[in-house]
């Protein structure tokens, strides 16, 4: 790539960072490291029950079957998935609405508090959730909010709201303020101008933020573990762990369920990847 513009001084040398064959060898290693465990997940999910326990393990299932997927897709699993969808959608809507409200204030350079609010937001994003979890659990217990989806949705704001405020602020600040001012000059109030001019322009950023919130809520395990003691209310990650009994692990079913849990989030990620990655790197890749 860089050799396209190489001068004679550079071309004659053989001390390249990586030669052609080296690139392919490195790429193969990287692919093996990244995909190896994932492929093993799928291979195990495709094995019938007794083949999972052959030692040494078969690299390719001798009797591939979808029975694990069938078994994993039982009504309980579907209920867990429903629970996850409900909680994550609720958390996403609430969080993005709040973050949008905040970004109306944060994205315009007028405010004096802006800098300190941004610092607070960043710091709260870096605090250990495990530490915050304990007092939150005890308050929720006193307030009778354990085992309730509403309680979980609110508690998810602990780790989603700071990131969402940070991301949205970045996206909205990238839209020229003159547009809002122009609309104001035409008689709209600044808030109306924000809603009717800026928000529609920021749609890709809002979508990426919403996806990020949904995505982190979907991954959550720790809060669900503590807040949902009622088995019927479990979210998907917690439910999947149920396949790991104390002494026996139903690996085939566990891996099939894991594959099923991974698919929707992969699809969502592929759909928003471009905005998402750009949003994440906005703060980091500078100067």
């Amino acid at each position: 790539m860089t050799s396209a513009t190489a001068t004679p001084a550079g071309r004659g040398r053989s001390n390249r960072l990586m030669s052609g064959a080296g690139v392919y060898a490195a790429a193969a290693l990287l692919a093996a490291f990244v995909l190896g465990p994932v492929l093993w997940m799928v291979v195990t999910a495709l094995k019938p029950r007794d083949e999972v326990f052959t030692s040494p393990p078969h690299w390719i299932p001798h009797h591939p079957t979808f029975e694990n997927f069938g078994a994993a897709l039982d009504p309980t699993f579907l209920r867990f998935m429903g629970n996850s969808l409900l909680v994550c959608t609720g958390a996403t809507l609430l969080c993005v609405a709040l973050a949008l409200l905040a970004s109306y204030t944060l994205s315009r350079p007028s405010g004096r508090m802006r800098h300190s609010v941004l610092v607070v937001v960043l710091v709260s994003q870096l605090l250990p959730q495990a530490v915050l979890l304990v007092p939150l659990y005890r308050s929720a217990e006193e307030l009778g909010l354990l085992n309730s989806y509403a309680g979980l949705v609110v508690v998810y704001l602990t780790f989603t709201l700071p990131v969402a405020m940070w991301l949205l602020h970045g996206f909205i600040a990238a839209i020229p303020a003159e547009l809002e001012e122009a609309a104001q000059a035409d008689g709209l109030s600044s808030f109306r101008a924000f809603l009717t001019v800026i928000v529609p322009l920021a749609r890709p950023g809002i979508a990426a933020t919403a996806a990020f919130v949904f995505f982190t809520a979907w991954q959550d395990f720790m809060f669900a573990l503590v807040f949902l003691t009622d088995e019927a209310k479990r979210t998907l990650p917690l439910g999947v762990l149920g396949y790991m009994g104390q002494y026996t692990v139903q690996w085939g079913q566990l891996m099939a369920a894991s594959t099923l849990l991974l698919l929707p989030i992969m699809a969502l990620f592929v759909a928003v990847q471009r905005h998402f990655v750009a949003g994440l790197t906005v703060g980091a890749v500078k100067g």
Partner: protein
Amino acid sequence: MLLRQHDQSMASAARRPGAVVRRANKGEGSHASRHPRGRHARKESLLRAACLVPPLALLAMLVGYPLVETLRTSVMRSTFIQPETVYVGLDNFSALLSADEFWAVVRNSVIWTAVVVSLQFVLGLAAAILLSKRFRGRTALRAVVIVPWVMPGIIAGVLWKLVYDPYLGPLNNLLGGIGPMGGNPAWLGATGTALFAVCVAAVWKGFPLSTVMYMAAYQNVPQDMRDAARIDGAGRWREFWHVTLPSMASTMRTTVLLTMVWTFNYFDLVYVMTKGGPGVSTEIFPTVVYRQAFSEVNYGVAAAYGVVSVLVLSVFTALYLRQLNRVGGLR
């Protein structure tokens, strides 16, 4: 990537102004000019302040209150057997300092954070450079490299538990095929290997984000600076050391600090793979806080652990904020 994002919003913004003006004209017309400017501005800044109230109030409730409460509980004795809280001063902390468990947690957290962060840095950078080269299948590899990061931590944990399984897992089978291995080592079951085994899984789970960051930074290295180095007779390695790396330095600092915080706080993987065991050999701050609070119902000690980990994090956070300020991320 950053540039593309920016261009795009600029472009779509540039397409719109006509529409904006038209829509605005249909509305309240020249209503605004009738009001004195001062009152308008005051009303607007009040509204802006009001918009911050709900999110900030929630953060105060969900982050501020638990933080203060942790501080308060850390000087209280509060256990399952004795739910009546009693003020005990710094007793919880002195109990911590004299417990072997605490020093094991400190040692594990240092190893865990240092190993995972440095390996994520090296692997993330190497993968980023590789994926910035031209080769067949690059697009596909770029797409799949992110998979571990997208995978929920708990799934990654379960998956790696299977990889490490002494009899059913592919790892021992693979190693057995390469060289003489003593028996079937239980990587997660032995105190000597468990922590490093979990570290490898954490590197796998987290390095794609570093790769994404470094890829973006690598592409932002000014080509004319590279060319200038070439003209001055620098070889590829010298160009890399003196041009590419310095241009990426600020992204590297930010990314390393972020991964440090995330790794130090990471709970899911360790909980699923080892629950902190065997013994306390993989116990780190988040898992010990969880265990002390919810298994042993010793809220005072859990809070003391919490205070110590917040102190550690405040150092990382201060460094991170300084770094962000330097690159203008907070402006």
